[in-house]
């Protein structure tokens, strides 16, 4: 860096470059992120606060909020447990097919969510492989809450695992081995050594997982059946209202999702501000 500042014209150019780059990124963010976000809130309030509140109080909206929370409450803990287990297996053990497991954990990132949803319809739908058997035994998966949870778990599978794998790889297993040598049981080692080491990355992963779980559209759209008040999550409620020419109502529900995104952003920023060092350790040592 000092070389860049050695001569005056270079420093001037450097500052120009810096200014231009920052301005470019700012404009980009404003157009791509802030403008649409503002538009959502402006449209949501286009008929006044009373109409906005009226939409939020409608039973369809209330049930879509409840369902979105229910799906997240079921899907996120599953992926928390899976993420920790997968990261543990990937970083502490050597076994055949480890690379394959790593690839499979990343699969949901590369598969189109709509395809993910369709796969579950193919497996559990009335015409699907297990559909007739499930139907005979009175079990409903597709077009009901279990299907929504399954699809959401699939889509959000990598978030916690990915976050932990790189951190745990970087941290290595020395501290854990020391704990075992000193006589700690497996569980003691996990709760007293491993968990404290990974807790902030874990929380970060859960946060991202939760945001995606609540915002997922494509996969849940395929398995939902769009039954009002029963299988319609908030993103689906937005789409349905939009398709029914209820533009203001669609944006009102969308603004709730927008608020959720902002809340996620704030918590994420707080985490980074407070525990930035531990999270950064992952970034620098992990890659």
């Amino acid at each position: 860096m000092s070389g860049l500042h050695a001569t005056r014209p270079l420093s001037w150019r450097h500052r120009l470059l810096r200014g231009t780059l920052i301005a470019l990124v700012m404009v980009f963010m404003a157009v791509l992120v802030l403008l649409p976000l503002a538009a959502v809130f402006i449209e949501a309030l286009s008929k006044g606060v009373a109409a906005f509140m009226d939409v939020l109080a409608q039973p369809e909206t209330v049930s879509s909020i409840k369902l979105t929370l229910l799906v997240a409450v079921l899907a996120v803990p599953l992926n928390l447990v899976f993420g920790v287990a997968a990261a543990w297996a990937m970083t502490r053990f050597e076994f055949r097919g480890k690379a394959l497991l790593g690839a499979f954990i990343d699969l949901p990132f590369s598969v189109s969510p709509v395809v993910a949803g369709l796969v579950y319809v193919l497996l559990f739908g009335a015409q699907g492989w297990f559909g007739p058997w499930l139907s005979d035994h009175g079990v409903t998966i597709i077009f009901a809450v279990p299907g929504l949870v399954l699809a959401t778990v699939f889509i959000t599978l990598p978030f916690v695992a990915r976050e932990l794998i790189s951190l745990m790889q970087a941290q290595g297993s020395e501290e854990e081995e020391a704990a075992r040598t000193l006589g700690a049981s497996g569980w003691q080692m996990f709760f007293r050594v491993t968990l404290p080491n990974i807790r902030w990355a874990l929380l970060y992963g859960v946060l991202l997982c939760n945001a995606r779980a609540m915002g997922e559209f494509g996969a849940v759209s395929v398995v939902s059946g769009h039954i009002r008040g029963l299988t319609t999550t908030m993103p689906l409620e937005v789409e349905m209202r939009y398709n029914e020419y209820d533009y203001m109502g669609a944006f009102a529900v969308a603004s709730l999702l927008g608020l959720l995104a902002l809340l996620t952003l704030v918590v994420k920023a707080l985490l980074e501000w407070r525990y930035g060092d531990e999270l950064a350790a992952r970034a620098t040592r992990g890659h």
Partner: protein
Amino acid sequence: MKRSSLLLFAAVLLSGMTLAGTAAAATLLNVSYDPTRELYRDVDTAFLAQWNASHPADKLAIRMSHGGSGKQARSVVDGLPADVVTLALAYDIDALADRGLLAEDWQKRLPDNSTPYTSTIVFLVRKGNPKGIRDWGDLIKPGVQVITPNPKTSGGARWNFLAAWGYARKLPGGTDDSAKAFVKALFQHVPVLDTGARGATNTFVQRGVGDVLLAWENEAFLAQKELGKGAFEIVAPSISILAEPPVAVVDKNAQKHGTQAVAEAYLQFLYTPAAQEIIARNFYRPRLASVEAKYSAQFPKLKLFTIDDTFGGWRAAQKRFFADGGVFDQIGPGS
């Protein structure tokens, strides 16, 4: 992986059980298409008041599902437990009959082709009708851009296509060849072929593309109501197709749920004067003459032809016009 799949299984079981626990009260699931939300909200309220008054012992609840008509039919085939379907075209319900979900002759079970309400295809134009569009012939004048979705993917667009064909075919001296030439010219005036009716509406209304949108009359009214009367005008052509969105009980599901009686009562209710009033207020054309007379100012007068009389029903029309290698493929943008 083993641990996670076990957990998945446990979660599925758990949520399956909670769902079974709440499904005790009698419910009726009506799987409908996109723009019927307000219509059925009113119909359901009226029907429930009547039904629950006469059946105080077992309270009924009605659930609605909305989406693109073809997609909704597909979902019912895949196991969406619809007791009744109220879709945009008979062809989509035929698809359910093909899978044995209801009888092949379902359309004969209720009056008027099992369609308690109808609509037609009209033009939505911009304020003041700057291109002076009055009838189908004006759509192929130089410089006019027409917005209509792809009839291969959109059920609604098939009505549009057949309405245009019927107009040209029924002109004095009209033949199959002249009708084909007309729809070919028409589709050359279509700048973007959206996959669905809502996409086309958004192209026209939100993005401001095109001079005229071919739309269902009830949806044109809905769009006008939502967006303010000033921005768009509805133009009724001299002649158009009678759009018949049919209703049917899905026998196999209703029998399984024990809802056969209430499902039939629900659909029959649609033909009563009370429901026909609700239908007219929600911009569908009622079947009942007395209600039709009362709302005659709302619906423009035009000559209407039916799919059965002009095209020999949906199965024949589908095969002739929209199947691979059919008329639309011969005249379409790719040809």
